[in-house]
C-alpha cells in the first residue's frame, strides 16, 4: 500500500490550507494585530509625541503615522502572501537579504520586544503606584512579570475568543473615555510657528503607537482567507490611529495631563468620567500591560527556542520543559525583563526606550521593504495570494519614508545628559555592532560544524532551495 498518494486539486485558499481544522477568522486577525500593538507605554508615547508636536499637531501626527503605516501594511501583506511562515521576519530577511543580516536583525528585533516589556512595566508600576501609593512600584513589576512567567511555563494560553474580546473592549473603553473627555473644558495649546518640523518629529514617534501590528503576519498560515490579511492589518492600524489620535486630542487640552504625570491615561479617565473613568483607565493599563508581558514572552520565547534548536543561539535555549514550553528561553526573558524594567523604574529614563522602539520599528519597515524587493527579484514567479499595488512604488516608498522617520526618532530628545549626543542612535549602533559580531561568529561556527559533519561521513542535510 502506498500511503503517500498523488496530490489532489488544491482549494481556493492556497496550498494545504483547506485541510487544516484550526483556522483563524478575519475578526481574530484584526484583534490580534491591534492587540499586539496596543501597549500601556503608548500613553507615555503620546506625551512624547505631544512634546514634539504640540496642540492639534499631536493627533494629526498619530493619524499621519497610521496612514503611512499602510505602506508597511501593504509590504507585510505581500511578504506573508508570498512566504507565509511563522518564522516571519527571519525567513523574509534570509531569503531577501542574506544570513548575517537576517540573524543580526532578528536579534535586534528580539531587543524591541524586551524594550516594550520594560517600558510597559514602567507605565504599569507608575499607574498602580498612583492608585495604590502604599505598594512600591517594583513590587508590581515583579508580581506581573512573575505571573506572566509562571503562566507561560505552565503552558497556559488565553482562548481565542477571550483574546478577541479583550482587544475590542480595550479599544472601545479608550475611545469611549476619549469621547467623554471631549466635553470636558480645556485649553488646546497653540500650534507653533515651526509646525512642519514639529509635525515630522511627532509622526516619527507616532510610529511607536503602531509598533507590533505586523507581528500577526506569522499567523497567515492559519488564516481562513490569507488574501484578507492586508485588510485585517489595515483595519487594526486605523482602529489604533482613531483610538490614540482621540486620546492625544483630549490629553493635549486637559490641565491635569499638562502637569506631566507618568499616568496621563488615569488623568484623562478621571477628567472624563470621575472615579469610574480613573478605574476604567487603570483597568485598561493593567490588562494592556499584562497582555504585553504575556504576548512578548510567548513570541520571543518561541523565536529564541527556534534559534537555539537550529544552533543560531546557545543550544540550551532550544530545550522544552515537561509541558512542552521553552523553559530556558522564558527564564532568560524574565531575568532580562525584570532587570531592564527595574533599571527604567529606578532612573525614570523611559524616553530612550520609546525613541529606540520607534527607530527599530521604522527600521523593521525599511528592512521589510528591502526584503520584498529582494524576494520579487529572487522569486518573481512564486505564487502569491496578494500583491501590493503600484509595482515597486510601495516598497520603495516604505523604505524612503520609514528611513527618514527612523532617523527622526533616533535623534529625538531623550532627556539624558549631554543633550547634543543622539543617545538612541549611539545605543542602537552599539547593539547592532554587537549583534552583527555575534551573528558572523555564530554563522562561521555553524559552517565549521557542517564541514566537520561532512568529513565525518554524516549525510549532509538538504538545504533550502535557492529560489
Amino acid at each position: 500500500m502506498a500511503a503517500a498518494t498523488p496530490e489532489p486539486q488544491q482549494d481556493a485558499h492556497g496550498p494545504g490550507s483547506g485541510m487544516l481544522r484550526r483556522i483563524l477568522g478575519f475578526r481574530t486577525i484584526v484583534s490580534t494585530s491591534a492587540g499586539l500593538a496596543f501597549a500601556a507605554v503608548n500613553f507615555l508615547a503620546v506625551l512624547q509625541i505631544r512634546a514634539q508636536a504640540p496642540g492639534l499637531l499631536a493627533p494629526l501626527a498619530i493619524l499621519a503615522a497610521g496612514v503611512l503605516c499602510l505602506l508597511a501594511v501593504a509590504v507585510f501583506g505581500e511578504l506573508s502572501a508570498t512566504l507565509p511562515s511563522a518564522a516571519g521576519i527571519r525567513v523574509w530577511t534570509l531569503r531577501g537579504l542574506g544570513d548575517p543580516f537576517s540573524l543580526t536583525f532578528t536579534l535586534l528585533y528580539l531587543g524591541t520586544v524586551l524594550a516594550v516589556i520594560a517600558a510597559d512595566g514602567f507605565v504599569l508600576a507608575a499607574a498602580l503606584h498612583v492608585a495604590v501609593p502604599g505598594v512600591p512600584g517594583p513590587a508590581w513589576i515583579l508580581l506581573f512579570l512573575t505571573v506572566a512567567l509562571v503562566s507561560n511555563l505552565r503552558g497556559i494560553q488565553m482562548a481565542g475568543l477571550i483574546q478577541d474580546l479583550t482587544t475590542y473592549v480595550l479599544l472601545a473603553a479608550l475611545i469611549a473615555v476619549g469621547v467623554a473627555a471631549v466635553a470636558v473644558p480645556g485649553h488646546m495649546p497653540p500650534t507653533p510657528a515651526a509646525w512642519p518640523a514639529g509635525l515630522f518629529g511627532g509622526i516619527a514617534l507616532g510610529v511607536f503607537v503602531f509598533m507590533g501590528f505586523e507581528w500577526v503576519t506569522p499567523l497567515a498560515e492559519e488564516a481562513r482567507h490569507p488574501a484578507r490579511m492586508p485588510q485585517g492589518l489595515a483595519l487594526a492600524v486605523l482602529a489604533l490611529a482613531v483610538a490614540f489620535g482621540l486620546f492625544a486630542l483630549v490629553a493635549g487640552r486637559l490641565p491635569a495631563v499638562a502637569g506631566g504625570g507618568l499616568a496621563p491615561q488615569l488623568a484623562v479617565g478621571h477628567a472624563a468620567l470621575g472615579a469610574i473613568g480613573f478605574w476604567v483607565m487603570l483597568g485598561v493599563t493593567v490588562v494592556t500591560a499584562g497582555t504585553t508581558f504575556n504576548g512578548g514572552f510567548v513570541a520571543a520565547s518561541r523565536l529564541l527556542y527556534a534559534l537555539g534548536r537550529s544552533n543560531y543561539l546557545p543550544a540550551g535555549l532550544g530545550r522544552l520543559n515537561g509541558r512542552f514550553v521553552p523553559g530556558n528561553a522564558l527564564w532568560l526573558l524574565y531575568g532580562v525583563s525584570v532587570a531592564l524594567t527595574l533599571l527604567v523604574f529606578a532612573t525614570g529614563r523611559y524616553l530612550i526606550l520609546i525613541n529606540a522602539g520607534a527607530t527599530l520599528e521604522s527600521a523593521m519597515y525599511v528592512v521589510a521593504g528591502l526584503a520584498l524587493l529582494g524576494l520579487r527579484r529572487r522569486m518573481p514567479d512564486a505564487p502569491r495570494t496578494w500583491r501590493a499595488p503600484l509595482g515597486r512604488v510601495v516598497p520603495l516608498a516604505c523604505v524612503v519614508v520609514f528611513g527618514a522617520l527612523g532617523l527622526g526618532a533616533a535623534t529625538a530628545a531623550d532627556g539624558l545628559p549631554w543633550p547634543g549626543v543622539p543617545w538612541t542612535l549611539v545605543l542602537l549602533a552599539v547593539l547592532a555592532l554587537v549583534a552583527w559580531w555575534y551573528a558572523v561568529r555564530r554563522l562561521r561556527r555553524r559552517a565549521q560544524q557542517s564541514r566537520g559533519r561532512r568529513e565525518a561521513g554524516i549525510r549532509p542535510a538538504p538545504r533550502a532551495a535557492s529560489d
Partner: protein
Amino acid sequence: MTSADQMTAVLQDFTDQFNRSPELPKMTQGWDRTIVIRARDAGWVAALRVEGGRVRVLAGEAPAEIALEGPSDTLAAIFRGELSPTEPYMDGTLVVRSTEADMMKLDIFTLMVWGE
C-alpha cells in the same frame, strides 16, 4: 527527489521507532493529531495519525491539525532523523501550518525518535 513509495517506507520506519520508544507513547497520551505531509516537488501527500499514544500511517489525505509542506527530500530527511525540522522551517524551506504548541511538540517528538 524522494518518491511516494520511498516516503511511505520512511514513515513506516518512523512510526515503528516511535511506537517502540518507552517514553513517546506516554508523552503523547491525549495529544491526538493528524499530520498531513505534502511534497511540493514530487506531488505526493502523506498523512500520519497520532492517537492514544501510538502513531500510524494513514492512506492518503485527511483533515488535519498539522500540515507540513516542503521539498520531498527535506521531508524525508526530517522523518529519517537526519535534519531537525526547525532548520528548514527557519529558512522558509519547510512550511508548517499548525498552532505553535503543536509545532513544538512535533519538533521535540521527531528529535526524541531519532535522538540529537
